[in-house]
């Protein structure tokens, strides 16, 4: 099991190590600064951190020694925006070409290749380990991209980048709110990939529109890569054909709303969600923190509560704040109220590591 965990928070990056039977905070990097996510690159042991300095913009840092020292990297940025015509969002407000937040960071198939999704809507690619970034213009220039809009932020954002383990030229992404997309030729061409997702909260004419769907998070089964799971604003969807079509998974208990989803590394039928009351309240159902697990591809779900607070708990788990390690037994989950839990038995029982961290944006095990 992975004995190293990185927790990205509003006030820094926390590096935890498993010390026998307990997790210990080994180091806090960037204290006071928001870290939207981190990524451990098993190819060379690099640790990447994406900072959002609030006043001073998005920054990228890399560590070669697990966070002891950091170096500045280039941050992804858009090219110069044409002065005319003024680009607008579907609601008529300006759409500035500006990276507001790094919202996805994944290793690509080539040495040094990285993919980066952002709030702002840009997908960026680096071929030199983050030394430089280039906007993926084939996606940015796609006419359907202009139908995206923000979900929880003013601008749309790419939060999921899935590099296919069989063929790294196949990349799938998830956009809030812009649906699921895929390329099969390394980013030369892009296809909407949200058929079957629906949005009851939209006007009926747009309910099934693939380009306005709001997947909150999409994950891919490493052992059966055509199996994808999506926690969507409207509910949960599963694809068994690499994202070409999706089916609704309606019977999640205690609710189908949520942000995070994780899939077992070797059992494609096993997945975890962290349900909450949707839209109007966004708190756990009955103020109880619950993880929902299926082991039969979503036919049935079991609410897991052991070790999790069951009274007056208002923790929400954001889309990147649930992770499972390479064994499928060890999970970690962090909340908006700074609670961090881990499990060593696939979620049957959870242990609270801390209730006092800053609001947690993302958790990530070191893999490989």
């Amino acid at each position, binding site marked *: 099991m992975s004995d190293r965990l990185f927790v990205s928070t509003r006030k820094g990056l926390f590096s935890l190590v498993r010390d026998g039977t307990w997790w210990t905070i080994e180091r806090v990097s960037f204290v006071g600064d928001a870290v939207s996510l981190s990524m451990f690159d098993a190819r060379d042991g690099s640790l990447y951190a994406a900072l959002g*300095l*609030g*006043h*001073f*913009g998005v920054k990228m840092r890399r560590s070669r020694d697990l966070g002891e020292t950091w170096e*500045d990297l280039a941050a992804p*940025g858009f090219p110069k925006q044409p002065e005319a015509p003024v680009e607008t969002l579907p609601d008529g407000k300006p759409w500035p070409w*500006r990276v507001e937040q790094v919202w996805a960071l994944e290793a690509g198939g080539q040495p040094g290749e990285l993919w980066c999704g952002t709030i702002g809507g840009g997908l960026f690619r680096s071929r030199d380990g983050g030394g430089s970034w280039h906007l993926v213009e084939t996606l940015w220039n796609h006419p359907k991209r202009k139908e995206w809009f923000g979900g929880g932020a003013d601008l749309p954002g790419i939060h999921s980048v899935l590099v296919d383990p069989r063929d790294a030229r196949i990349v799938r992404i998830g956009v809030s709110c812009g649906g699921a997309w895929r390329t099969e030729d390394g980013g030369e061409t892009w296809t909407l990939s949200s058929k079957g997702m629906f949005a009851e909260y939209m006007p009926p004419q747009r309910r099934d529109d693939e380009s306005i769907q709001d997947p909150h998070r999409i994950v891919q089964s490493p052992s059966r890569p055509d199996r994808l799971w999506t926690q969507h604003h409207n509910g949960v969807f599963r694809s068994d054909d690499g994202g070409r079509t999706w089916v609704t998974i309606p019977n999640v208990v205690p609710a189908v709303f949520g942000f995070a989803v994780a899939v077992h590394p070797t059992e494609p039928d096993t997945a975890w969600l962290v349900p909450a009351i949707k839209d109007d309240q966004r708190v756990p159902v009955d103020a109880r923190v619950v993880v929902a697990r299926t082991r039969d591809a979503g036919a049935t779900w079991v609410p897991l509560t052991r070790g999790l607070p069951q009274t007056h708990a208002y923790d929400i788990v954001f889309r990147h704040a649930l992770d499972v390690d390479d064994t499928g037994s060890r999970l970690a989950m962090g909340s908006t109220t700074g609670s961090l839990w881990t499990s060593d038995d696939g979620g049957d029982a959870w242990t609270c590591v801390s209730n006092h961290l800053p609001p947690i944006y993302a958790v990530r095990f070191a893999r490989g």
Partner: protein
Amino acid sequence: MPSIVFTSALQRHVECPAENVAATTLRAALEAYFARHEKTRAYVLDEQGALRHHVVVFVDGVQVRDRAALDESVGPGAEIYVMQALSGG
């Protein structure tokens, strides 16, 4: 020559000592400074060359309003202050 002073909140992230620059517009003053301190640029300006959303600039005590062009004149003794907008928690 105009002088440029940065908030201490920025000096926590990047080296940005107060300096004098030879320039007659705000844009030219900032560019002259960034030519010497390239890393400071991305903390003050976004990728479109405009002031970052939560950065404010004062010239002789008057807040800059045209945040994209930055083309206002600055006098030979102008004092340019680069600060963060007050927000957050």
